[in-house]
């Protein structure tokens, strides 16, 4: 009898988001007691903290080295065999970035800096398919929103 009542309550669409959020909240609270075990074996290779800053590097702390199209910078791919040209444009800086980098020592931490080159290869070279999917999701959201806005599906007064 009680179980039947619970099922009946769950059959109301309005209650479902609340039920879902309560279950999610319980699981997220349980997450506080889960021991955090990070895997640091596959991390992105980085120099020691403050090392680049003590060396007076204007790109510190994001200097990844490399000469564009000649020498690869420090990057790490999951499958290096599928990404033979990786790191080749990591060292690229735009003319404005070179100008600012020559003027100040704090280019690496300024708002218009780009960590290790203008093209973030981790995202656009070795994980390019992700960016395709992400923009597809965004495009579909705009398609739906604009269709609904143009055709005005919710004609409450006429119904």
């Amino acid at each position: 009898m009680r179980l039947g009542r619970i099922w009946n309550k769950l059959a109301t669409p309005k209650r479902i988001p609340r039920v879902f959020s309560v279950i999610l909240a319980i699981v997220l609270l349980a997450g506080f007691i889960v021991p955090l075990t990070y895997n640091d074996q596959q991390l992105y290779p980085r120099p020691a903290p403050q090392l680049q800053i003590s060396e007076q590097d204007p790109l510190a702390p994001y200097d990844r080295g490399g000469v564009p199209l000649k020498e690869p910078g420090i990057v790490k791919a999951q499958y290096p065999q599928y990404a033979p040209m990786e790191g080749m444009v990591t060292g690229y800086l735009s003319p404005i970035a070179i100008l600012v980098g020559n003027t100040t020592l704090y280019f690496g931490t300024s708002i218009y800096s780009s960590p290790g080159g203008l093209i973030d290869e981790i995202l656009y070279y070795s994980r390019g398919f992700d960016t395709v999917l992400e923009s597809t999701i965004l495009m579909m959201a705009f398609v739906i929103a604009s269709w609904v806005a143009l055709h005005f599906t919710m004609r409450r007064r006429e119904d």
Partner: protein
Amino acid sequence: MDFTTLGGQFLGTIPLGDIVLYFTTFNLFMFVSALVFTAIIAMSKTESQIEADFGTLKDKEKKVSKAEFKIRRFLAIICGLATAGAMITGDVFDYTLFVALIGIVNIGIVAAVKEIDVLEAAFQYGIIAMIASLPLFAGAAFILASSGTISLLEIINIPTTTMMFFGSILLFIGVAGETGVAPFFATKAELFRTAGSPFLVIIHLSSLLIIVRTIEILLIINKPF
């Protein structure tokens, strides 16, 4: 435990940089069936429903208008393709992106309807799908942080930790919210009360295949046997 225990014969991979799609007998079958159903749905026409009033002759016919038909067919095809992609991807983050795409397209398929009850249910389903994107991506992030990789071909060689297990629970809650399985089915059941059954069937089919694939991925991550 490896891919052959779960999916049968390992047939090969499609490398896209760090994202590697892979084929086993099992997920190739699901991939092909998703594509076949998408093709059938793209060719089929909608039915019309008749609502009869008792004791009178006021029958009301519910039809899908041409503009509505076009957008719903387009979104149904995208939904089918996203389902097919989710079947063969070997990357947890890509998988969550495919599931998020299916979720948003499902809302779109019913948002084009001009019935208030259905739109109300679609609104509630949309809220759940939006909330569910938090555990979905957080689950993938937990798995990445604890194993150092999100490629299933690598994760299968890494011993499972408690944090990976917690990440997969979050992932499952996310998928449950996006696909609307029990006990969150009430919103989805309401959605099916409208004309245009081919497009409603793809909503159903995508959640079905996604749940099966999610269970396979959770078994790969957690390695219970």
